[in-house]
């Protein structure tokens, strides 16, 4: 009959709801999380392997002082291949994932922006954050 359903669903009323109120509360992100890329300018030699391996042509090697990669995150799919194949370990992935922008230019990250301290860590928005 249907009584078991009624009973089990009513029991669920007393359990805690699982909804996260997103902008205020961020879920726990694991260390392996693939968010925005971070560039270590000290280590980067500008070899361009990242730009060759990228399946979506996100990465362009530009000159800003030396040659560094520039990311157009508008069509990045965060597969992490660039980080994995970087011969010097200059690229890494951070937990910053709130990358929306009002303009197309806003999604292009220059080497300087990539090398700056990570925004998510500055604001403490890397998970487990409670208001």
């Amino acid at each position: 009959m249907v009584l078991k359903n009624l009973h089990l669903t009513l029991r669920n009323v007393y359990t805690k709801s699982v909804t996260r109120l997103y902008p205020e509360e961020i879920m726990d992100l694991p260390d392996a999380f693939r968010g925005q890329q971070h560039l270590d300018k000290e280590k980067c030699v500008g070899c361009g392997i990242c730009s060759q391996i990228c399946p979506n042509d996100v990465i362009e090697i530009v000159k800003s002082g030396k040659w560094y990669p520039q990311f157009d995150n508008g069509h990045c799919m965060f597969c992490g291949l660039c980080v994995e194949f970087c011969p010097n370990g200059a690229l890494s992935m951070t937990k910053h994932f709130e990358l929306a922008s009002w303009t197309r230019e806003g999604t292009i990250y220059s080497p300087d922006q990539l090398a700056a301290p990570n925004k998510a860590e500055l604001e403490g928005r890397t998970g487990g954050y409670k208001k």
Partner: protein
Amino acid sequence: MGVIDIIMDSLVFIFAGNPFAPWIRGILGGLVIGGVFGGALVMVYLERKFLGDIQSRIGPNRVGGRFGLLQLIADAIKLFTKEDIIPARADKWLFIGAPIVALTSGFLMVAVLPFDLLVIKGNEYAIAVSRMDISILYLEAVSGLAVFGLFMAGWGSGSKYSMLAGFRNIAKMIGYEVPLGVSIISVAVMAHSLDIVEIVEAQSSIWFIIAQPLGFVIFGIALLADLGRIPFDQTEAEEELIAGWATEYSGMRWGLAFFAEYFHAVVGALIVSLIFLGGWNGLPIIGNLGLPGVIWVLFKTIMVIMIFIWIRGALPRLRIDQVSDLGWKVLLPLALLNLVWATIIGLMWA
């Protein structure tokens, strides 16, 4: 000439038998309709919150503080500002009229629902817009009107989904009006009256849910089917017919159609609390604790509404042929059986 006369005549008919002065009845009518309107709003809010609890969600929580109290107002503003689309192939007047008809039948039903009975100097004053000798018959007749609204929508939209939903609706209504009517008659037989006020008064010693539990179950199932709530929402089965008869509606017209459903649900819950749960008689054993009867009626109505919501959260949807099977092959024989039972018990009481 003619139309106004007919309207006036029917108004006189509706208001007949109520000892209040006409202006009091007018105010009362406004209050009652407004109250049920408000009740429908409360039901929408409760449905979101309680269903959220059942489904491990929070429900509305942004507009109007933590509990989302103003969510409905935000929704109404959204609906009012949306574009109103009438499909090119729609039958325009049927399309426009359908939600109005659906809502009006709900309004008409409210007219005879009593909320309390005051006895002042030996005179009975029912807190109702109109007190009729045959109010329960009137209720059944008017509730049948709602199906016209839905079928008008189904036919007038000019869409196959809506039309299928309209067909299903007619099939369902025919199947369930009969057990619904028979179980109401059983109540009337037991109370020896067709007047809802007297039916409620007859429950002062024992509620009809206890006197005829089978009748209550049949009435509840048939009522759910009439209201088109899960598990009987075949007329707006999302995964098959998009939104059924409401598929082509948009903006406030859709809002009206949506609201008509909740209005009907509140009226349905009111009827259940009046004819089965003792109305203003308070609870068994503890009595009415000196509280006004209106409070008790509202309390019981909200409880019934919560049960509606709970059922919606717990059950899947039946198929339309199974719905018809249930109505004709199970509920109708049982309803007749219940009528026999009610007659015997009613005679013994008399």
